[in-house]
């Protein structure tokens, strides 16, 4: 679990990481919105294919890309089943489940697949976006979109310390499991309570030390951020190309595919 938690790809040099995060954010949101609005599976699936190949292109191992998409895949499967059995009217096939008969419907299945494709498409956009943009850049960019600075300040601190707390947490888990703290359900429970307590007290200790360190460098209750640089003309030009492109592809696929 903790292993997936890494933003090393986002810190590599490539075409995508060089783009200003504010500029990346706009098409990402546009993509997600149009995926969610789409009424046919083609557009979401195109987006999924595009994002997956882009992820591979920026050097993410296939295994990791699949691992990241595995969770949503599970949800998709559930969704398809849920929709197939719980909505629609045209019977497709019937299952004997214990003593009951369950009927899957065509509309339900369709709808399930549509929603499933939306999930995969939208999630893959998120994943691509996060694997080419470090979270701190996203948070900083959010200031430009008028997200309150207090929120950004908290988010940046959370982001920073999550990594070091994770290391400590995994050390505590290591120590517990080598002393057989997870060898039965009961023990796991109490070990986990202790773990949660340890993580929280650690985090509070860290908070006090961090606050001390911040004071030493002149902190007086709120952070001073660097001014955001102005948008470049090329960025705006690129946006002017990409956004209509997304829109056109979306429209075409909705209408003709």
């Amino acid at each position, binding site marked *: 679990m903790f292993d997936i938690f890494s933003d090393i790809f986002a810190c590599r040099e490539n075409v995508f990481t060089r783009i200003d995060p504010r500029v990346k954010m706009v098409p990402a949101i546009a993509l*997600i919105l149009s995926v969610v609005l789409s009424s046919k599976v083609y557009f979401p699936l195109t987006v999924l294919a595009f994002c997956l190949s882009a992820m591979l292109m920026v050097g993410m191992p296939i295994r990791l890309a699949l691992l990241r*998409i595995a969770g949503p895949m599970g949800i998709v499967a*559930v969704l398809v089943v849920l929709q197939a059995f719980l909505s629609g009217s045209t019977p497709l096939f019937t299952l004997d489940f214990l003593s009951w008969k369950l009927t899957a419907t065509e509309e339900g299945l369709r709808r399930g697949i549509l929603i499933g494709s939306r999930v995969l498409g939208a999630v893959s956009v998120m994943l691509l976006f996060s694997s080419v943009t470090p979270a701190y850049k996203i948070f900083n960019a959010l200031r430009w979109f008028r997200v309150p600075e207090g929120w950004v300040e908290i988010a940046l601190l959370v982001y920073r310390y999550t990594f070091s707390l994770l290391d400590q*947490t995994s050390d505590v888990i290591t120590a517990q499991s080598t002393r057989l703290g997870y060898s039965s359900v009961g023990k796991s429970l*109490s070990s*986990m309570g202790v773990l949660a307590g340890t993580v*929280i007290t650690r985090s509070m200790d860290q908070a006090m030390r961090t606050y001390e360190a911040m004071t030493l460098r002149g902190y007086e209750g709120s952070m001073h951020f660097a001014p955001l640089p102005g948008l470049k003309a090329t960025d705006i030009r690129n946006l002017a190309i990409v956004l209509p492109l997304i829109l056109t592809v979306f429209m075409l696929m909705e209408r003709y595919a």
Partner: protein
Amino acid sequence: MYLPKKYSSQSLKPGDKMSIRFLERGTATAFIQKGPPRMLIPALTTAAVLIVLASGPAHAMHISEGILPVPWALFWFALSTPFLILGLRNLNARSKSEPHLKAMVALVGSAVFIISCMPIPVPTAGTCSHPCGTGMAAILIGPTLTVLVASVALVLQALFLAHGGLTTLGADIFSMGVAGAFTGYGVFFLLRKLGLSWFVAAFAAGLISDWATYGATSLALAAALHSDGSFSTMFWSIIVAFVPTQVPLGILEGFITAGAYSFIHTRRPEYLGMLAKGEAR
């Protein structure tokens, strides 16, 4: 404000076309006449499916990106934004007199985030799932700040783990942050007022906040997904489907919250005082 029509028609009439399709056998028809059990069968089905698909429940606490239609996404955003603003106001107001507050809130936030990533075994389903940690956070830093922290954690989870997402952020903030935090805090506060021990109160806070989160998530999911079917069938199916994981998970979360709280209570009581300012203890 856009509100889908069927949102208000929550009750399912006996003999509803939809549920009958599942109950062709005579033995089962008896259920149709009564109340909630008529949801049993679709629910059991979904439960079975969910249990088979181990990753489903693990991620199900957050609504995945792409599930909510745009109007619903906006609706949930509108619902949770006031709470976020409240949290930010609270933060800014308090951090003048308590300059360490921001660091504290942020670090408790990362702790909660990490705890919510801890895989915990769910005995009944034979799978792993994750606690929410919002009940814990609510006891420690209060509900409004918890909403704030949950929103940050959700954004990070959406970015790093593909749990939840951008369009569903509003709904997720509502279920994790608002529903989880306020109920957890309320229960803790109430039980302490009633003179129960803090262990019981913390346990209940963890349990109730977990269940409230799950209730709110099911509500949002059902509202978005029921399409031409009935809202309440969908809602109860989802509820019942999650029962095998969420009931034990809620209890586990209760234990973890109580364990963690007693850990802090015995080792570092000064922090409890520092954060809650004696409110809930």
